[in-house]
């Protein structure tokens, strides 16, 4: 009885500290449910990484959490307030969306793109004022892209574009950043750079919910990992505990060797690439 009471108390503490919380969520595209019984929450200052293969429902889940798709059943709440009761502005001030850095923009300058993050802080007919320009400058400075401010978004590299979109999310001043495959289509160095920025965001007290198909990213910078298998939760917990060879086999249908570096306390994944025997001459 005492144990139950303790558990209950712990849970209510979690509820208060959660920025976003989904309970018994079923999600998917209209008319086609992809996953059910999703329970997740992101606490203040936490990095939660969603892992799963391509087409596994990561983006659809994120779009549902962002209220871009309607829920099929269950509840999503932002700091305890039901998501569907929040106005567009309230939502935008609570969570910022960092899309994949594609190149379908008009040739806006990076500063103009970052300024668009201020939309939720501006009246319908307002243009960004001195305060907004200052906020954009702070955001660009935080990501060390001030030198890109007057370049156009179409002429910078993919990694720089991703940083600009993160800066836009920072200018939005929301405590939670939701990033859809921030490392996709980036080269090796830029992937590491984005992971570093995620760690810096956490260090500054922000929360990050991001998805990736690389389990090493979860091991390197997430507090918890959520493994999404055909839309449903396979496991949710500390990366070192849930990113296991067995789980990765289920997720990606590949044999994985987890290599521990005990001296540094690291672990990383190495998929087994089946060797091809030389054909007989």
């Amino acid at each position, binding site marked *: 009885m005492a144990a139950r009471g303790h558990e209950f108390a712990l849970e209510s503490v979690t509820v208060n500290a959660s920025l976003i919380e989904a309970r018994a969520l079923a999600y998917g595209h209209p008319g086609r449910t992809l996953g059910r019984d999703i329970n997740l929450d992101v606490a203040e200052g936490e990095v939660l990484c969603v892992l799963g293969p391509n087409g596994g429902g990561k983006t659809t889940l994120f779009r549902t959490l962002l209220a*871009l798709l309607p829920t099929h059943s269950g509840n999503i709440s932002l700091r305890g307030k039901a998501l569907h009761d929040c106005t*567009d502005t309230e939502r935008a001030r609570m969570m910022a969306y960092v899309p994949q850095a594609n190149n379908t923009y*008009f040739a806006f*300058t990076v500063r103009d793109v970052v300024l668009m993050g201020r939309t939720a802080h501006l009246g*319908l007919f307002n243009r*960004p004022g001195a305060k907004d320009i200052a906020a954009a400058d702070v955001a660009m400075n935080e990501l060390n892209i001030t030198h890109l401010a*007057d370049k156009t978004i179409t*002429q910078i590299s993919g990694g720089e574009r991703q940083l600009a979109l993160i800066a836009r999310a920072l200018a939005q001043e929301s405590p939670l950043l939701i990033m859809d495959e921030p490392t996709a289509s980036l080269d090796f160095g830029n992937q590491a750079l984005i992971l570093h920025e995620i760690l810096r965001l956490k260090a500054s007290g922000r929360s990050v919910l991001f998805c990736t198909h690389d389990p090493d990213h979860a091991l390197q910078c997430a507090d918890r990992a959520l493994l999404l298998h055909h839309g449903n939760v396979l496991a949710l917990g500390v990366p070192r505990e849930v990113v296991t060879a067995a789980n990765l086999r289920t997720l990606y249908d590949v044999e994985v060797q987890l290599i521990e570096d005990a001296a540094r306390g690291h672990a990383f994944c190495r998929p087994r690439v089946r060797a091809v025997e030389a054909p007989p001459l």
Partner: protein
Amino acid sequence: MNQRLPTLSLAALALLVVLAFIAFSVGRFSISPSELWTVLWAKLTGNTHTLPSTYDAVIFQIRGPRVIAAIFIGAALAGAGAVYQNMFRNPLVSPDILGVSSGAALGAVLAIFLSLPILAIQGFAFAGGLVAVAMVYFIGNAVRGHDPILALILTGVVVGTLLGSGIAMMKYLADPYNQLPAITFWLLGSLSSITPADLWIASPLVLVGLVPIFLLRWRMNVLSLSDDEARALGVNVARLRIIIVASATLVTAAAVSISGIIGWIGLLIPHAARLLIGPEFARMLPLTLLLGASYLLAVDTLARTMASIEIPPGVLTALIGTPLFLWLLAATNSRSKA
């Protein structure tokens, strides 16, 4: 680029003023700048002048309405084009993308076919444009499971083609001696028969449509992002889009109903403005309006002076527009790669 805006806008404004003076001066009855000034000054101060009354007639009855019409219609079509290009994230769309021109044309052709008076032709054209866009909008929204932008554009193309066949049918049935030339004249577009009365009806409608576009000019930038991004930034995309579509349609329909169809301006001018000042809508809009006004004024002045007969301005905008557009295309490309 920030500091370029006032300079460029002032230059565009100066160009427009110079073009307006030229437009008043040249023609079969030429008026020198000093004569123009004398007449205008007399009108402003309420005094009389010593020049023959022909001057008053030419300036206030013939060229005046035409110059003002060119300014209003050019600005209207260019502004609407910029709005649609921005909203549909596609620099190749023009104000008639949602069928406003084909709707207006069918309305006007129907009115000509029924031998209705001029005012009814304009009314039919205006209503036709609004009805066509409303139809496209509701069908496009009813088509589920597609990108809403793509659904709107495709519906616009399909409905436009349907209306086009309606126009073809009317032309086929029309009286070839009386109605067919009137239909052809209207479809080619012309400013030659515009009266002060037309302007009193059309220009307020153009202004009413431009007000929301002007007020929402910064937010238009956010509308050029993907729907997901715009909504996550806190914009009610569906509501904003219907306001903007309604405004741009009103502007275009009002312009087209008195001038007939004048193509190219809505496609070409926003490109030129974007090349000069960048795509940020709040900076781009004033320049687009000024350049659109200047372009149509220049084209219309050429149309009535370069040959002994009037050349339809729709033909001239295309003749000048095609090479200019191709040049802009090449220039934009090399710039964005630089």
